[in-house]
């Protein structure tokens, strides 16, 4: 039925092999880029065929597994290389291949002239391969393969400019933090496999099998442990508190990478994983609560940091962290469909934003380069007034910004509002839901604020760079702009396939296609939750829903206004603000000193421990003991050799002594 699904990951793999092995020889950029993009295009096409075929099936049959070959078999453990096709994975492959293709196109233009061009596309294709493996894998282990694979690629791509120390560090940081997450993932997998096997004799790591047997699992208890482990993995991959700090640093990588990996696809893997294992998570209210709270906190916390950054990409990075927070909030609220929906829309507008910023940086860079100025092309304080110079970029960027800010009618609005509403109305976490909603709403306001701050600082006002450089600012070539247009369009209209029920009804009964589409995946869980939620679910009236919606919109608008007043109307406000609250500003600007905290609390102690264990313990004590024995013996030898005085009467004495002792002992014992 879906026999050719294995082609989807295969094409990028082939692309990777070609570029990786022969890219150096090929040299011709268009060919290399072409190969890379074409590989992804192919898998995009196949994905489309797949999803169409899936839609052609009746709802309950929309699930298929395609086994390629047996990977590991040992005793009662078995892992196949096999793919799982269901609505959820189909959404993901669509997003991944679709956005991925656009970004490949973009990269051809953006990476033009970079040394190691082939390397870039090889890595990019490898990433696509791993990502598709991750979303298509039908068992925990295969997912983990993709999981680590994307981590590797992000490591490689962040460190793409490896001669920059900062890049190398950022890459390492990303990989290690992901590893911390993987540690959780592995443990979760072990625990799940062992528990199901040992106490229910179900030895499996296949999602479908686990789902089938999930009724054997208790509520809470061991499942909480397992799910928390998995969630730890998710926080690592999706940059949630406490493991988010790698993502902003990851901006060291080329901008397309930030767009593809650190906005659209990889970082959402955590969300996908939870959605994929929803049947597991619903069995642990505790975990769900943790997920929701962490999500909300991250959303808010990252947003606050975003308000005070000047590096255009860093702002977007924190915004990404914050948006991911929303998704987790949705997951925690049991609104899986909504989360996935936001995942999709976010992929659209955030990719668009990143690529747009990339275009800006690109031309800024060239301009500064021509002017022989060494200002940072990414610092918004050097920008301004680009609206006129780069109209297309500006337009797309603005649309995406509106989308993320949650202005009604744009994709971001639908998805975000759905999440907030679900967080409010779903009662799994008792009265926590008000708090969750509140945090989400505030975060939305902050988002609107810092995003428009960014827009205003970048595109409005008059340019803040040397006039000489100013003349070199220009719109980017088509191959860069085209993806922007597409993504912008998507971020406008993308929302309409998943309109919240209430709006749909208001507009004359347009159903929430997206939710319906995902229903077979989540139905069971949603029912289960509605049954088991330990609080009487309150059914707020439409009025409340409309009200909350309006409120969130107002908050967003407020944010925009503030941004407008601060960065367009009267520009001295920000400086005055910082002057009044220097400490606060410094704290926010320095990301609440979290990195410093980690260095102080974890990194340095570990290094110190290593140093002590080596110099202090290994050499002195362990090895010291070994050599000590030897030295003692040698010293002893050095002493007793002098018993051999050379005087025979001493020898005779010794002999006589021996005789006496022996006789004495035996005769008088």
């Amino acid at each position, binding site marked *: 039925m879906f026999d050719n699904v294995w082609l989807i990951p295969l094409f990028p793999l082939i692309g990777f092999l070609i570029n990786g092995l022969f890219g*150096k020889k090929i040299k011709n950029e268009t060919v290399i880029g072409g190969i890379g993009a074409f590989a992804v295009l192919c898998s995009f096409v196949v994905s489309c065929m797949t999803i169409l075929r899936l839609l052609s099936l009746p709802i309950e049959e929309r699930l298929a597994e395609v086994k390629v*070959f*047996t*990977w*590991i*078999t*040992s*005793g*009662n*453990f*078995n892992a196949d290389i096999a793919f799982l096709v269901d609505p959820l994975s189909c959404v993901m492959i669509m997003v991944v291949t679709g956005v991925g293709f656009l970004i490949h196109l973009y990269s051809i233009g953006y990476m033009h002239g970079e040394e190691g061009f082939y390397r870039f596309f090889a890595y990019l294709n490898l990433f696509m391969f791993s990502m598709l493996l991750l979303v298509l894998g039908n068992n925990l282990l295969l997912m*983990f*393969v993709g999981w*680590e*694979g994307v981590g*590797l690629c992000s*490591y490689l791509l962040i*460190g793409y400019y*490896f*001669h920059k*120390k900062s*890049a*190398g560090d950022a890459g*390492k940081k990303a*990989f*290690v933090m992901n*590893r*911390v997450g993987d*540690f959780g993932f*592995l*443990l979760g997998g*072990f*625990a799940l*496999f062992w*528990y199901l*096997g*040992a*106490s*229910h*004799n*179900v*030895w*499996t790591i*296949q999602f479908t*099998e686990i789902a*089938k*047997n999930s009724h*054997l699992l208790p509520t809470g*208890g*061991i499942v909480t442990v397992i799910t928390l482990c998995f969630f730890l993995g998710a926080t690592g991959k999706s940059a949630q508190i406490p493991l988010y700090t790698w993502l902003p640093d990851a901006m060291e990588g080329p901008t397309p990478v930030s767009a593809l990996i650190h906005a659209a696809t990889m970082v959402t893997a955590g969300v996908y994983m939870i959605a994929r294992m929803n049947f597991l998570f619903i069995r642990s209210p505790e975990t769900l609560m943790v997920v929701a709270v962490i999500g909300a906190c991250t959303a808010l916390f990252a947003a606050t940091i975003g308000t005070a950054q000047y590096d255009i990409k860093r702002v977007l990075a924190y915004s990404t962290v914050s948006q991911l927070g929303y998704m987790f909030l949705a997951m925690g609220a049991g609104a899986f469909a909504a989360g996935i929906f936001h995942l999709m829309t976010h992929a659209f507008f955030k990719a668009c934003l990143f690529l747009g910023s990339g275009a800006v940086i690109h031309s800024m860079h060239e301009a500064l380069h021509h002017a022989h100025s060494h200002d940072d092309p990414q610092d918004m304080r050097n920008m301004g007034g680009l609206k006129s110079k780069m109209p297309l970029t500006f337009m797309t960027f603005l649309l995406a910004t509106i989308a993320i800010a949650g202005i009604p009618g744009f994709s971001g609005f639908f998805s975000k509002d759905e999440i907030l509403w679900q967080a409010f109305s779903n009662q799994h976490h008792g009265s926590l839901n008000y708090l969750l909603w509140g945090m989400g709403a505030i975060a939305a306001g902050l988002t609107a604020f810092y995003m428009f701050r960014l827009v205003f600082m970048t595109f409005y006002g008059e340019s803040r760079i040397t006039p000489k450089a100013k003349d070199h600012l220009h719109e980017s070539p088509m191959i860069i702009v085209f993806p922007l247009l597409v993504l912008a369009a998507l971020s406008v209209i993308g929302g309409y396939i998943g309109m919240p029920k209430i709006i749909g009804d208001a507009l004359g009964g347009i159903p929430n296609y997206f939710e319906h589409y995902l229903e077979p995946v989540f139905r069971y869980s949603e029912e289960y939750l509605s049954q088991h939620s330990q609080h009487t679910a309150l059914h707020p009236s439409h009025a409340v829903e409309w009200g909350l919606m309006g409120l969130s919109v107002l908050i967003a608008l407020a944010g925009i206004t503030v941004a407008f007043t601060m960065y367009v109307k009267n520009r001295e406000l920000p400086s005055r603000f910082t002057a009044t609250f220097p400490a606060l500003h410094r704290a926010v600007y320095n990301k609440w000193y979290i990195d410093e905290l980690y260095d102080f609390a974890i990194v340095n102690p*570990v290094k110190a*421990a*290593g*140093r002590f*264990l*080596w110099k202090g313990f*290994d050499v002195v004590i*362990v*090895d010291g003991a*070994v050599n000590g024995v030897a030295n003692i013996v040698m010293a002893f030898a050095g002493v007793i050799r002098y018993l051999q005085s050379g005087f025979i009467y001493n020898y005779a004495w010794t002999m006589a002594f021996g005789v006496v002792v022996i006789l004495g002992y035996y005769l008088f014992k």
Partner: protein
Amino acid sequence: MSYILSLTTFLPILGVLLLLLIPRESKSLLRSLALGVTIITFLVSLPIMTGFETNADFQFVENVPWIAAGPFVMRYYLGVDGISLWLVMLTTFIMPIAVLSTWTAVEEKVKEYMICLLLLETGMLGAFLALDLFLFYIFWEVMLIPMYFIIGIWGGKNKIYAAVKFFVYTMAGSVLMLVALIYLYFRGLEAGFTSFSLMQFYSLNLDPQTQTWLFLAFALVFCIKVPMFPLHTWLPDAHTEAPTAGSVILAAILLKMGTYGFVRFAVPIFPDAAYRFTPLIATLAVIGIIYAALVAMVQEDVKKLVAYSSVAHLGFVMLGIFAFNQQGITGGMLQMLNHGISTGALFLIVGFIYERRHTRLITDFGGLSKQMPVFAVIFMIVTLSSIGLPGTNGFVGEFLVLLGAFESELRWYTVIATSGVILSAVYMLWMFQRVMFGELDNPKNQTLKDLNPREIAIMLPLVIMIFFMGVYPNPVIEKMDPAVKKLVSQVKRSNPTAEAPSAMQGLPEGHPVVVAPAASSGNSVIPAGATNTDEAR
């Protein structure tokens, strides 16, 4: 009775005799001859793998009387089973690579060097193949001699200290094993057995007391060889001082002697004791994993870093073996092979840059990937496989080890051990970054040449193996599976409760254990763990 095992084992000796005839001046001839011999040995050993039938018994057995005097009967008794098969293959596979790696590294005393390498190969193969404990002990000791010379003659500036330490340390352990061996033999004599044959000792049911003492004697020497945590300090010295080929062989094969010793002798002969000492061993293994990782992290010498990393890796192996279940031991075995390949490759890589720069200090390098792209790629691949990234060999072994250990009673050890996965990433990537990334500022590095064809030829087979065993390990696993099952059953027989309680352990209080229908997972074999959980209920 086929003589292929003897042939494989003693071909290198023939090579030695050939080398003796060749004048020491004609170095290239000596080199190519040694290479030829090792390659032929590899080819000869291939039929062992292809002809090996997937079952639990020993195959290609050769069993002839050797010494018979007084109370003793020693036999020349060779055989291969799923456990030794891959180690033998690994040995014959690594040796040509090791020889090739010395092409330019060793300039003086080439003749002696090659002779030592070949003698070493015979020793190692013999030790893996011997099924007569006395014969095993002979090969075991014989291995020391050439390695001692390799370190001591062609080693670094501190070579003598390292060589003597290596020799005496190992010797001190193995002599105790000798006494245990003798004692064991006389116990066998009482039971009516009259040879050192392994099979007989397997069927010897010793009282716990005796088992404890004998196990300790065996475990000590094997722990030294592995090396387990407090007994590991000879390794960094030996590794850092040894010439490249020496380090490669030491890491790839010699260290496996220790773990192999556990799998083949210490555990199945003294199952009760092995079972009783599991907590101790597991603790040491876990300490080793974390400890070695932390120490490796702060090393300044690349080679020392790799040396400590092997301590950590072998900690995983030990953990897997002492999980006493299918996954654990299979994983342990795989991890042995993987460590052989990956760490061997790492030492080769260190050798490459050492040959070029005559330093191994991390701080002397930086930004090499600019200068040596091919090297960078290979180095990266090897590093990742040593980290245990999925898709490379390192992952499969490590994963199975941890899975198996988690299923067994060593759950909490596993949790700690798994964090070693993080640390390994930390120290390896940090090292890689400091060596390969960053500015190419050191002028000495700006003239470095990328790998030459010979060096690529050395690395290629290893890289291929890295991916093959990562992507399609099943053929390997299948061949060793029956032997591993047998081993598991040997331990279980004497400890029926070996795994059962673990299944119950750590369940939430008061949670009713549902008796589920037969395993619904797609594989045919009856899972050992599952049957045991049934027994327990």
